[in-house]
């Protein structure tokens, strides 16, 4: 759909909204809000405690939801962060990383930018939604999540998720228009359009979802920046285990016949066992990986996309979760790539200390073979408290 048409659609909805509003003016407009405050203490070191650096992050999120009428609603979500600690001085251009936002509109503010203190606010959701039984139309900054796989999502073309970045689970929003239409038997078709600042940044795609023989299946296709994309994903089961996969193929728009495409493919199986054990295994294949590896933490901040979910061609994941009680659980994740025998160890413990207060301890350790020696690429420890309201 062309932008002009989309604008026409939005205008027509606005008109219908105004007409509806006349009928519904007696209804009370409702505003709901909620949020959390998180305190994340981070300590990083490479080999010895001498190299220890720390970063503190006080992080607040407030989500507002506005019920405008029966069919129209809006959402605004704000993220405020206060950083302090010696990593601010040590890491080059960290402010740029913190304040960076690839949206059409700059809805952020860097309040303080000192060597030891950075304060930043960002509106990462601001959207208007029109909803009926059969339609959902959302315009604005939003999360368009087409992923199925729990770890790696080649189908998540609008906003790829990095599972190591556990402290920003909401992910940045995408400035886009999303139109969803629901059919019978749990089927749906949707179109999403994310205009880029430049043509080469535009993403526009169609997604069709259906369910057959207890499998959720999705097919997608469209324009992904400088490529044409087609993809598929599924979620079903093999005996008692869950079985999921995603595949995306990207072919350059220019020089169509002379160029070769690349693809990204992920698979996973998961199963629960007695006494609240849960195990998942996954694999990712990236046909054209960027050669650059990762050192401690860089994978967290590097450019991650549906096309490039991991720096290496092959990646394998094993996750083990044990729930001791509703108030305490342990999770150990291991990611391995044969490239340089790279290994990421990612354990975490979670405690629910009070009704609305959680504490978790997480570590991320990176190991790889370099110059014939197997070395640690660094370890980061995270201690996080979260109060939800």
């Amino acid at each position, binding site marked *: 759909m062309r932008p002009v048409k989309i604008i026409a659609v939005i205008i027509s909805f606005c008109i219908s909204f105004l007409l509806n509003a006349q009928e519904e003016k007696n209804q009370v407009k409702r505003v709901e809000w909620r949020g959390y405050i998180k305190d994340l203490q981070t300590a990083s070191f490479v080999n010895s405690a001498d190299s220890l650096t720390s970063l503190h992050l006080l992080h607040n999120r407030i989500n507002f939801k506005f019920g405008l009428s029966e069919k129209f609603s809006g959402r605004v979500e704000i993220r405020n962060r206060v950083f302090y600690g010696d990593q601010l001085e040590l890491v080059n251009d960290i402010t740029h990383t913190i304040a960076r936002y690839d949206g059409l509109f700059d809805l952020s503010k860097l309040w303080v930018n000192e060597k030891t203190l950075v304060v930043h606010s960002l509106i990462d959701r601001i959207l208007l939604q029109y909803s009926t039984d059969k339609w959902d139309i959302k315009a604005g900054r939003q999360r368009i999540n087409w992923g199925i796989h729990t770890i790696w999502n080649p189908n998540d073309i609008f906003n790829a998720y990095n599972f190591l970045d556990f402290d920003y689970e909401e992910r940045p929003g995408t400035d886009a228009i999303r139109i969803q239409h*629901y059919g019978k038997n749990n089927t749906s078709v949707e179109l999403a359009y994310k205009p880029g600042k430049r043509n080469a940044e535009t993403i526009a795609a169609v997604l069709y979802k259906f369910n057959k023989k207890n499998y959720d299946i999705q097919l997608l296709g469209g324009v992904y920046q400088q490529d044409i994309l087609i993809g598929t994903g599924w*979620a079903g089961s093999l005996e008692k285990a869950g079985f999921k996969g995603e595949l995306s193929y990207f072919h350059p728009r220019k020089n169509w016949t002379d160029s070769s495409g690349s693809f990204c493919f992920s698979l996973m199986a998961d199963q629960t066992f007695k006494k609240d054990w849960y195990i998942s295994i996954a694999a990712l294949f990236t046909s054209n990986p960027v050669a650059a590896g990762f050192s401690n933490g860089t994978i967290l901040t590097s450019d991650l996309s549906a096309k490039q979910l991991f720096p290496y061609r092959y990646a394998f994941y094993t996750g083990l979760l044990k729930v001791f009680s509703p*108030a305490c659980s342990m999770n150990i994740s291991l990611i391995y790539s044969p490239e340089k025998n790279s290994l990421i160890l990612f354990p975490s413990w979670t405690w629910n200390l009070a009704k609305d207060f959680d504490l978790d301890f997480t570590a991320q350790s990176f190991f790889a073979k370099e110059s014939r020696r197997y070395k640690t690429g660094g370890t980061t420890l995270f201690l996080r408290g979260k109060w939800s309201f």
Partner: protein
Amino acid sequence: MLMKRHCIIPFFLIFIVHPSTVQDAREIVKKADDRAKGETSIALITIQTIRPNWSREMTVKSWTKGNDFAMVLVTAPVKEKGVVYLKRKKEVWNWIPAVERNIKLPPSMMSQSWMGTDFTNDDLVKEASIVEDYQHLVTGDTVISGRNCYKIEMLPKPGAAVVWGKILMMVDKKDYLILHAEYYDEDKKLINTLLAGDIKLLGGKLLPGRLEMIPAEKKGNKTVLIYTSLEFDTPIADNFFTTQNMPKVK
């Protein structure tokens, strides 16, 4: 990491809404069963998990239609508010609002216990077939909370794939309410006791508003369900129970 905390609630609740599938002398069983079921149900439920050192409370809203469809929305605590579970026949999905995505849960979730509570999921899934899978026998009478009850012993039929070795059930003679149930393992050792109380009008029927599951071996542990409201037979379209509807239910 995201999905695990409540994985089992849907089954759990299906059981809760139809707590009385078990029974007699089949007729008694069936009557009690029919009583607690409607064509559809909409319920507000508080779930308390009680342990010697701590307790947690959660509130949910659930919608069911027959045995095939169920939707469960967590309404409290605030951290999990908006989390939704959907069951369609044998498939289960989990909507996580914070990441705005739906995760399909593996079938093995069905044979797992609901974490930390005293309900095991195996019971719950198979509960639905208890009428078929057990032989029922009225073994006597008893009185519970001033109500005359049938005492019914249930033993698994040969070859039936059931968890329990024996179930003892007390069913109110007048209103066909299951007021008390004891679950035994294959060695006839008591594992769990279910107590029903606070009998009141719910959804136009006299039903227990409070259910407690108490494990025999763990002192000070129990799980309590309190029905704040219950409605039966409100028409709900099949397409209410779709993955697309999960983010919208309220």
